[in-house]
């Protein structure tokens, strides 16, 4: 299934300054794995030391309240990846 992935702006420096991706995958895990292939700089964020500093939302729902990385993706779904912002 084709899924849109949007990144919050603090992540752009890890994604080669790209804010949006269109990625195929049946689960969140597959989509994120292919995102990491397309944007290797995202490794630290998705599976590395910064993983605990981000939240992942599927159609605005936190995947932690769904099936986490095994959450199924439907055509047209949107993943949003964001750290907790701390600036004020």
């Amino acid at each position: 299934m084709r899924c849109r992935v949007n990144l919050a702006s603090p992540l752009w420096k890890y994604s080669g300054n790209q804010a949006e991706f269109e990625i195929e995958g049946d689960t969140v895990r597959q989509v994120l794995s292919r995102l990491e292939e397309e944007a290797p700089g995202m490794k630290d964020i998705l599976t590395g030391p910064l993983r605990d500093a981000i939240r992942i939302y599927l159609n605005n729902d936190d995947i932690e309240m769904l099936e986490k990385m095994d959450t199924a993706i439907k055509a047209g779904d949107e993943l949003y990846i964001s750290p907790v912002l701390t600036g004020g």
Partner: protein
Amino acid sequence: MNTRVCDTSEQNRYTRQMMLPNWGKTAQQRLKDATVLIAGAGGLGSPNAFYLACAGVGHLKICDDDVVELSNLNRQILHTSQRIGQNKAASAQTTIAALNPYVTVTVVATQITADNVSALLEDVDVVVDCLDNLQTRLLLNRQAHRQTIPMVHGSIYGMEGRVAFINPPHTPCLQCLAGKAFDDGTFPAVGAAVGVIGSLQALEVVKYITGCGRNLTHTILAWDGFHNRFQMLTFNTKADCDVCGPRQPENAK
């Protein structure tokens, strides 16, 4: 309780908001009787202080130990070029006194620490989180939960930001959201962007005090100014949250 909002010139000041359904003299008096802690008098603290003072909140406690710097002035509209070097909370007091003489401002020119956070929250009805680092935000969150004081969280990065209304013990808290800090270094900030987020925070405070409207609970409002997008993200209590989670003995029903 403060004096009644009976002075004609004071009432005239609030005429346009008092026109709203369910506002009138009662809600206006609630604002006058309220004490709001603004934690941080920088980018987010600026629109909060302005709009809460405009709205007629009777007592603003403004806390910031920092001094005004030239590089603050692209966004921190409480301060001026002439006040560079002055404490930010004191500078805020000067600005607010000129804006609305009916508002009392208490200047707290100290850093928020584990030793003073409890006293800082004493007699406070709502706290506005306008801080610039996760550690102090979490400290404030923890103590606000202990003292069951609602906290309006706001945060920004460049041209995007977040707002959430945390109302202990009924809602998730900031600790549920924040595993660890992503990047607590110097962050980019556009003045109009902190204006958007700070104004939304101030509106949450006003809605809570007056009882008009519905607060942003169990939701994070995420605003992306780069792409003109507002999203309502789900915000849930973490079962193992060591502040508000149901497994904490002090939170047991």
